[in-house]
């Protein structure tokens, strides 16, 4: 998982995102500024010595927002920030008992519009690549499309909350019953009922455009079309689909939203979108978009698809016997200077035992210093042992390491 995290953070750094450390514990009243009641309830809480309630963060976007409005308030916008760390929530799901998760994410604060949206989506896709995921699918949608439909339907005040709730629970049976009870039937009704199927390539935008009758949804479709174009310019084609039926927290997201799915995993691996309202809650109004990757879920997928790197591979196991210890220490230092990973044995071992030790460690090369003028070198992937001066072995290994 560490490797995956490093790879993802390295990709974020290549895009100019600065790593920030956000606190794990926050005052509940501070987190509460950016979280709705249901999310708040699921946070782990504890009491400070002065009686105030602290909470363990359940996600880190709110913490980043606080940082931008607080410690970084003098920094000019836009800011590109990334983070990684554990989060804790009481998951209400009956089947997921996991409370601690590990998330790595990026936020682009202070930029609005399709260019910023496309940048963050493209970055997310590149991060999935960097993590080593071979097959994935990223779905891009727009929260305003749905909200526009709701406006357009002009539902009675007592029905609208129920419609929102049914959609939030993805309960289309209840949704159909609710809409059947309303007097008007329009193409927009149909769109709402067809929500899970409103997914595909750019042609879905035209198809939906022919059916919507409200300005808010139309604007969302225009923005999506632009983001889709820009993503192509970013070099992303096949991995990205458009999903007008993406159902997310519509009170939080204010624009383009997206989710990344891997093979054979029932949940999304990455999710993100535009949340232009959050920063204002912390006193520095600014548009913002970002995403996060569920690192532990990603680890599971990688493991299952055989891509997972196990423990970090060692380049060299350096063994010694007799008077060879000092030579072994010098040799290992040189190897490390060339950027290789080397372990020096803590006890003397004869060459035969050292070969077994190398296998147990899982190191590529074995070098054995016995105190003579040459050292024994058992190269990776080749049988037999060669005897060379230590400096030559270092040179050979450094060459192979390139």
């Amino acid at each position: 998982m560490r490797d995956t995290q490093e790879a993802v953070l390295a990709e974020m750094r290549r895009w100019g995102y600065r790593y920030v450390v956000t606190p794990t514990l926050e005052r509940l009243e501070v987190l509460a500024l950016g979280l709705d009641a249901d999310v708040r309830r699921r946070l782990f809480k504890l009491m400070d010595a002065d009686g105030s309630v602290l909470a363990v963060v359940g996600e880190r976007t709110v913490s980043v927002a606080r940082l931008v409005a607080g410690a970084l308030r003098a920094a000019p916008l836009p800011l590109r920030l990334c983070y990684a760390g554990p989060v804790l929530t009481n998951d209400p799901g009956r089947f997921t008992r996991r409370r601690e998760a590990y998330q790595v994410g990026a936020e682009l604060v202070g930029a609005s519009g399709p260019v910023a949206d496309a940048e963050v989506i493209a970055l997310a896709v590149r991060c999935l690549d960097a993590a080593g995921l071979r097959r994935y699918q990223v779905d891009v949608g727009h929260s305003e499309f749905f909200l526009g439909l709701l406006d357009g339907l002009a539902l009675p005040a007592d029905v609208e909350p129920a419609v929102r709730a049914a959609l939030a629970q993805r309960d289309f049976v209840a949704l159909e019953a609710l809409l059947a009870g309303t007097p008007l039937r329009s193409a927009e009704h149909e769109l709402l009922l067809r929500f899970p199927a409103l997914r595909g390539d750019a042609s879905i935008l035209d198809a939906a455009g022919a059916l919507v009758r409200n300005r808010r949804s139309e604007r969302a479709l225009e923005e999506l079309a632009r983001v889709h174009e820009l993503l192509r310019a970013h070099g992303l084609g096949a991995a990205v689909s458009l999903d007008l039926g993406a159902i997310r927290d519509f009170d939080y997201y204010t624009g383009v939203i997206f989710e990344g799915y891997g093979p054979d995993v029932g949940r999304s691996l990455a999710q993100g979108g535009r949340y232009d309202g959050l920063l204002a809650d912390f006193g520095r109004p600014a548009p913002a978009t970002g995403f996060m990757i569920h690192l532990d879920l990603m680890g599971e997928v990688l493991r299952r698809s055989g891509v997972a790197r196990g423990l970090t591979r060692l380049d060299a196991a350096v063994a010694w016997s007799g008077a060879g210890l000092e030579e072994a220490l010098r040799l290992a230092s040189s190897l490390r200077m060339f950027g290789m990973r080397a372990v020096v044995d803590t006890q003397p071992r004869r060459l035969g035992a050292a070969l077994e030790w190398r296998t147990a460690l899982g190191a590529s090369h074995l070098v054995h210093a016995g105190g003579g003028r040459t050292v024994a070198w058992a190269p990776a992937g080749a049988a037999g042992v060669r005897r060379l001066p230590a400096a030559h072995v270092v040179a050979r290994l450094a060459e192979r390491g390139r």
Partner: protein
Amino acid sequence: MISVAIPTGTLLEGSLDLLRRAGVVDLGPEEIGRKLLVEREGLRVVLVKPADVPAYVDHGSADLGIAGKDQLWESAGGHYELLDLGFGACRLIVAVPDASPLADPRTWPPALRVGTKYGQATARYMAGLGQRVEIVELHGSVELAPLVGLVDAIVDLTQTGRTLRENRLRIVAEVACSTARLIANQASLKTRTGAVQALVTRIREVL
């Protein structure tokens, strides 16, 4: 390959019949009952306990599932509930012993003790009424609980009301109605859109 989780018990025949009529797969209850997992023509059918269908679908081990609405009340999962399949109708009701003085909600005591397998649905319903409630979670023979004085009332499923009558219980309120539903894993709808939607359409057409 698309996989479908179907439930053992009362919904099994209706589920198999539906899949047959939709031209999805023709399976007999004996065959699936014996094997629990059948793969045929690019489709995998798994037979699981009714309460487990949402778990299989939410985790993505099944792309689609057939589950009684009564199972979905209890789990706010991440699945899509796509279709009301119509069969397997039953009601979730509040029942009290024949001899009890309790009748409609207005006659209930300030704090009602209720025995049920459906804690979540009961809690939601009672909260909606503004009725304070103490829920005793039971796992079987719920009808027995009020007869021996464990609870004032039960909340349980009934199809015909026969079991209730046999246990000298009478219905005083209805909480909800349940029928079989088609549910889908959220990621399956994204990563296997074509195949999953095609199957859903075939089922929708024969409803």
